[in-house]
């Protein structure tokens, strides 16, 4: 009986359904797209005079190089262009750009104002939608700072299309290496993220190691053997003035890193044959011991919220990664794979930890979740170490050293997906990179 009643009800309901069902839109679910670089075009930025035109050409080149360097974009060469942009205000001929499959178009103009300042305006277009992506923007700077302006234009384009935070207008401090392996001269150097504008911060008379930017990018911590044994120094980037941090008698300090507040430094100190982690107020010099294990604890790195520290330790018998509260306390092991793990660095986004792994005679740069899950090795070579995160947490830079007596160190970058492995061009050998935050 129940069966018949329900069937009757269903039939009654259906009496009105056909019209509704037929008038609805066709519904599709798409779950598999493609991952490939997006083709884009950056014509030379237009200018009023020849000097401005040269500047416009250079700026367009840097913008294109920045975008291409991410691996997410593919530049369409200028000789493939059908139409030329001769005026910043004239309408864009979208059909011409569609014809060469340019999905994004960046147009710009360069002028010099009455004070000699460089004024750069740009617009970004979604070619196939036939509309502007975001509003046009104007940037003003010195003529010498044209590269920074170009990086800022590229940052805007990158962020508007991808949704990621920008990172092109940033710098990298590293150890410049010259000479043979057994007599290698090392000194601190700083450059734009893409290898341009290199300048040296120290001489080559003493060995320097592991420079680290402060959260605001105005200071650098590093370890120097200037006094014959390792000691931590802090340097002002603008003035290149430096001072040694407080150090206890008969101890060695190394592997320093700033806390997110910029006032505290966490580092390793070896005393009495044991290496532990310590923190220090950079102004007062007051220190706190964070670990007390008889094993070696080193390479500490803060989480972005400053509440936890990831570090490496051999307390389990071989080198593994641990996480503990920022003021010390019980540490939790997070790496459990085969091999040795070291030099952990917390992502600026807080979601991943980059590390160096040694396994089966090879070195890898990898990433894992902060609980140690989803480990993913991104690179592999004879020797590589020392990862550092881009300000937006999307790219990792690290040192790679080639084999043999003539082997040399150089810097590489890789996207966190494992794609787009690239060598960062430097005039000399380079190691120990540290990526700055985005510049103001």
């Amino acid at each position, binding site marked *: 009986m*129940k*069966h018949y009643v*329900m*069937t009757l*009800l*269903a*039939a009654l*309901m*259906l009496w009105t*359904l*056909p*019209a509704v*069902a*037929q*008038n609805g*839109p*066709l*519904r*599709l*679910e*798409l*779950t*598999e*797209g*493609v*991952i*490939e*670089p*997006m083709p884009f075009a950056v014509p030379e930025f237009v200018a009023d005079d020849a000097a401005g035109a040269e500047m416009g050409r250079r700026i367009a080149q840097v913008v294109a190089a920045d975008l291409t360097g991410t691996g*997410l*974009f593919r530049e369409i060469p200028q000789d493939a262009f059908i139409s030329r942009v001769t005026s910043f205000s004239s309408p864009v001929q979208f059909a011409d750009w*569609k014809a060469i499959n340019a*999905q994004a178009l960046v147009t710009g103009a360069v002028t010099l104002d009455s004070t000699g300042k460089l004024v750069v305006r740009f617009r970004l277009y*979604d070619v*196939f*939608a*036939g509309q502007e*992506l975001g509003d046009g923007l104007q940037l003003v700077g010195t003529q010498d700072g044209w590269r920074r302006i170009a990086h800022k234009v590229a940052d805007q384009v990158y962020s508007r*299309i*991808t*949704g*990621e935070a920008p990172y092109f207008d940033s710098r990298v401090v590293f150890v410049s290496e010259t000479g043979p392996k057994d007599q290698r001269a090392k000194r601190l150097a700083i450059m734009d993220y893409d290898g341009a504008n290199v300048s040296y911060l120290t001489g080559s008379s003493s060995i320097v190691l592991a420079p680290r930017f402060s959260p605001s990018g105005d200071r650098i911590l590093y370890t120097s053997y200037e006094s014959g044994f390792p000691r931590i120094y802090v340097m002002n980037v603008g003035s290149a003035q430096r001072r040694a941090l407080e150090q206890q008698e008969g101890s060695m300090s190394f592997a320093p890193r700033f806390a997110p507040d910029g006032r505290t430094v966490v580092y390793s100190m070896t005393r009495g044959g044991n290496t532990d982690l310590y923190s220090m107020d950079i102004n007062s010099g007051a220190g706190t011991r964070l670990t007390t294990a008889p094993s070696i604890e080193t390479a500490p790195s803060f989480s972005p919220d400053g509440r936890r520290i990831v570090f490496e330790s051999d307390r*389990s*018998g071989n080198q593994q990664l641990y996480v503990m509260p920022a003021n010390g306390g019980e540490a939790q092991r997070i790496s459990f794979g085969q091999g040795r793990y070291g030099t952990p660095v917390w992502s600026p986004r807080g979601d991943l930890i980059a590390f160096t792994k040694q396994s089966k005679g*090879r070195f*890898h740069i*990898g990433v894992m979740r902060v609980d140690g899950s989803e480990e*993913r*090795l*991104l*690179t*592999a*070579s004879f020797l590589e170490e020392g990862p550092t995160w881009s300000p937006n947490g*999307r790219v990792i830079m690290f040192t790679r050293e080639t084999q043999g007596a003539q082997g040399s160190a150089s810097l590489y970058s*890789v996207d966190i*997906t*494992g*794609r787009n*492995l690239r060598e960062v061009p430097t005039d000399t050998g380079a190691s120990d990179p540290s990526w700055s935050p985005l510049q103001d």
Partner: protein
Amino acid sequence: MNTGQIISGAGHLALMGWALFGGAFQSEPLPFQVTEVTAISAEEFAALSNAPNNPEAVANVDTPEPPAEGEGVPELSATEDATPEMSQPEASETPPADTVPEPQEPPAPLPEAEVSDAPPVLTPPEEDVAALVPEVSPRPQPRPAPRVAPEPVAQPDPDVEIDEVDQQETTPDAEAAETVEEDTRETAREEATTEIVTEAEENDLASAAPTRSPRPRTRPETPATEAEPTQDAPAPSEPETDENAVNNALAEALGQGQAQTGGTDQGAPSGPPLTAGEKDALRVAVQNCWNVGSLSSEALRTTVVVSVTMSEDSRPVTSSIEMLSASGGSGSAAKQAYEAARRAIIRCGASGFNLPKDKYDHWRNIEMTFNPERMRIK
């Protein structure tokens, strides 16, 4: 009616009644004995009757005589047996003096074992995995390629133009010169892989071959006794419940309703709905242009539902594209995800989707859900 006719009629009725109902009064047959017999041929009978008799017992058996005394006794020789020569080993040279072992550093002390009160967890012994499976999975592994797509595509010839579809080049044919054929350049899809292959994984590809071969398996001891279910066995049918009945009735009524209202209602689409294949073709066409490579991690966690109105030439009306809803990400992430979806619809619809024109009413309005969950890290 005379008496004769009455008697004849009664007799016929009795006969017909016996013919019709006589079976009900049948008695049981008498019991009889059955004996099994075997038919054999004459030759076989002859062979049976000429069978050899049983052998008779032999009363007299020849018993061998015992040998005479002294006969056949071997003589003892007086000479002694020659002593076999023993070869002496050659004296070796003075052995070298034992080298004093160099003191070696004692092995590093083992880390202190942690003693726990908890009993160890015993794991069941593993099967002889090495004998059954190779150490490295032999399944095909993706090769590195700049493009990640649902379908892997081999690297095309460098001279071939990259396009959305594979296409053969037209060649002039002298015999078929009369038929005019549009010139077509050879095209091929861009090289693609199904997953992102990192440098670390790329190196593993070189050693993808098994590192050792499996041992031959032992012969099974006993044949399998468990009878496998035959394919003929009917599948267990789902018991019909009220819900099923309602669903069936709904489906049936819906089908009938569609058939009935198909060509009569002016506001409803005409003709049969799109087939699954036609829907899949449209889905694949849009997916081919849905590039999520330039999306942020957050945008890759965002699902957007986009509506589009199509023109009759099966091209999307660009101004009609709008985002209906988004889930899983912030507003800016949803915006990036929507823009990527919009680009996909416009780009791949620029030359018109392959849709049946007679079913235009069914695809005039389309809602596409772009769910990048499977595209995050491949």
